[in-house]
């Protein structure tokens, strides 16, 4: 103790007295961060001739709060950044946030629905205004949380995917790609969410296994199995594996198939993608509502017949089934097929792979005009 006293008395290092007996992080961290920021310590030395070191911070979505995935990312990047900065390299860690299109829109729609509002009654402009206010709020939360981790990123260069400069960049790239013929407009099969009325990216959907029925149906000269018998209305072919001896003689031929809305014509095609062990080894092809079938159709130049609309209902070309949801149409069509003797048998408890939007709403595959 005498040492502390001596130091205090001489007046040097009186700061040392502040080295409290115990360290309480909460008393120091925010203060220190402010000091770093004030001294512009995170900004790179533009005059340095040494090689630069840069990390673009993966922009957190401007919707929520910081989670551990962000925390680990910030810890790793900050260590890399501080090390390079201390080595004397002009170092830039550039922070930012992402507008997270569909994730943000859904979140704001949810908030609105709690107030009894929806985006259609608000209209596009007012809705965007709501989203902007929400985003501004989240962004300031996130900025504060990034600071809390001690992240030494250069806030003077912070960006946002929807800021003016970045929007300009997006438009410019779009225009270039369009002029180069890389961007085109055409009919494509997409993950369609009937609730949001939009296509979804592959990362926005999840797959789930579920037990259900597997229908073995009489199909002209074939018996084949399907989990979605209602799509029979959109069939344009039957596909078999080229190595499957059972169906060799059928390949390339056309058949008339009896159906609940009368007879229709299909062509038999051979495709490597068909698993001879799936069902009877012959599969019906509905190009407008299945990714695999769509690919088969592209390869064999088969026609597309869309029968389900963007809200998940049967279209006008489905006769008496028009307007039904796919599930309603399924039971109606199966009942009618049974009456016509077109059902061979129904397997119960079959394991299906279904596709959902973030574990919630069941999705359909649909074709739509897309850019």
């Amino acid at each position, binding site marked *: 103790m005498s040492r*502390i006293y001596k*130091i205090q008395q001489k007046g040097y*290092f009186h*700061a040392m007295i502040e*080295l409290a007996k*115990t*360290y309480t*992080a*909460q008393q120091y961290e925010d203060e220190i961060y402010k000091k770093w920021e004030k001294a512009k*310590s995170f900004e*790179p030395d533009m005059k340095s001739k040494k090689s630069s070191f*840069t*990390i*673009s911070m*993966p*922009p957190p979505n401007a919707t929520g*709060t910081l*989670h551990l*995935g962000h*925390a*680990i*990312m910030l810890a*790793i*990047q*900050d*260590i*890399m950044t*501080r090390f*390079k900065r*201390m*080595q004397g390299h002009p170092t*830039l860690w*550039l922070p930012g946030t*992402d507008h*997270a*299109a569909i994730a*943000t829109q859904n979140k704001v729609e949810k908030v609105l629905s709690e107030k009894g509002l929806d985006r259609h009654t608000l209209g596009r402009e007012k*809705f*965007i205004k709501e*989203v902007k206010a929400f985003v501004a709020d989240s962004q300031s939360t996130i900025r504060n*949380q990034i600071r809390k*981790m*001690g992240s030494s990123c250069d806030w003077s*260069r912070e960006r946002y*995917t*929807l800021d003016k*400069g970045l*929007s300009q*960049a*997006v438009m410019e790239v*779009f*225009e*270039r790609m369009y*002029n180069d013929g*890389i961007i085109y407009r055409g009919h*494509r099969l997409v993950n369609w969410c009937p609730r949001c009325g*939009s*296509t979804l990216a592959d990362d926005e959907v999840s797959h789930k296994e579920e037990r259900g029925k597997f229908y073995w149906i009489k199909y002209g000269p074939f018996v084949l199995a399907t989990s979605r018998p209602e799509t029979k209305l959109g069939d344009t072919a039957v596909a078999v594996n080229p190595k499957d001896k059972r169906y060799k003689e059928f390949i390339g031929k056309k058949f008339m198939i009896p159906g609940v809305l009368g007879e229709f014509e299909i062509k038999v095609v051979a495709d490597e993608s068909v698993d001879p062990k799936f069902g009877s080894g012959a599969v019906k092809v509905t190009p407008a509502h299945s990714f695999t079938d769509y690919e088969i159709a592209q390869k064999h130049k088969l026609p597309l017949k869309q029968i389900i609309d963007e809200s998940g209902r049967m279209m006008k070309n489905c006769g008496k089934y028009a307007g039904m949801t796919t599930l309603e149409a399924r039971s109606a069509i199966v009942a009618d097929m049974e009456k016509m003797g077109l059902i061979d048998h129904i397997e119960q408890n079959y394991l299906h792979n279904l596709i959902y939007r973030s574990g919630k709403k069941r999705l359909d595959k649909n074709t739509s005009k*897309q*850019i």
Partner: protein
Amino acid sequence: MKDWCISRQIWWGHRIPVWYCQGCEKIFVSADKPEKCPKCKGKKLKQDEDTLDTWFSSGLWTFSTLGWPKDTEDLKKFHPTSVMETGYDILFFWIARMILMTTYVLKDIPFKTVYLHGLVRTKTGEKMSKSKPETCIDPLDMIEKYGADALRLSLIVGSSPGNDIRLYEEKIAGYRNFINKIWNSARYVFMNIDKEDIKATIEDVLNSKLSRVDKWILTRLNEVTESVTKKLEKHALSDAGTEIYDFLWGEFCDWYLEMSKVNKNKKVLAYVFKQIIVILHPFVPFVTEAIWAHVDPSMLIKKEWPIPEKKLKFPKEKAEINIIKSIIAEIRTLRAGSNVDITKKVDAIIYAGKHEALIHEKSEIIKKLAHLEKLDIRKSGFKVENALSAVVKDIEIYLPLKGLIDMDKEKTKLKKEIENARGLVVSIEGKLKNTGFLKNAPKEVVEREKARKEEFIGKLEKLENRLNSLV
């Protein structure tokens, strides 16, 4: 690779810059809002209702954020970026798109290195999920409770690129203890040096009277600095962090501070501690900056990273101190393994061979740190009966335990403990061979049994060593 559908039928996002002329039905693209149709000059134009997939703008992230399409200083200086660090789950959604779009627009790569971190899981390896709030740890709560430095270490040490990491509160609390250790060692150092010592340079250190212990810690400091630098260059963050952690706690605090109490060199104390704080900074920026405020008026964040010093290599002294450390460690292990009351001082006999002079010189340190009453150092001698024994290189160590413990009773006790441990190992092994158990028991139960087996095998080995050490 398939074509990428970039349009979305939602409102929030970049609206597609496709325009439809209401007059002549011309469809055209324009980055800026057009005034009139390029074909019929009509002014009735309608913009496409759709917006772009969110990954379109993220695909441009590395260069659009630096000012592109303008030809900025930043773009020239900082692109391509050095490291892209993100979770492995978005490798294809994002990383691949950045590469494609950047090479298309700039004819250049977006980044030189990709570093992917894993998922953060619970203690038992479960995925943390919002739908199960009890599995989630909120980083902000943890910062509030333990500080950001402790949270950072708990996420970094023990994790390697691409592998998932387990996080739980006790782990963060454990690193908070390390933060306290840093603070306490700073207090110790500051209390044991004079004002001018804190400025100690390498010249000051080399001009001071250096003991063997000083030369050993300086050599180790230099080695650790060099190794940590190399690890950080390779982005081996966990290894680098572990090495400084072990050096501060295991070598500087547990050995150097203790061994140097006998003969303090304040310059070395200050110099070594300062450099540890510098190389710790990237990992635990707050506590190190707080301590640095008492070292130097300039901030630690901009302090230059140390480079290894040739002048600080003392291989002879390092080897000698390692021998002393090993002797002390062996005596401690022998004592601990024999249930000798920790407060009780014991006697030791060392047959030192060619190291006699060295061990004589450091006998006070050995006595102090190994808690000895009497230390008898000889060049060589007969094997000591009724004593615990150990060997370090060609040095023999004996702890005569007569009077301290009852040898026969100790042997009987040990044999019984060995029998028990063996029985347990056999029974767990039986369980783990049982296919019914393996099939039906939850995975974590099986894992726990496996860990228990390892634990008892280790224990068994220790007990057998103890029995063998009773000469």
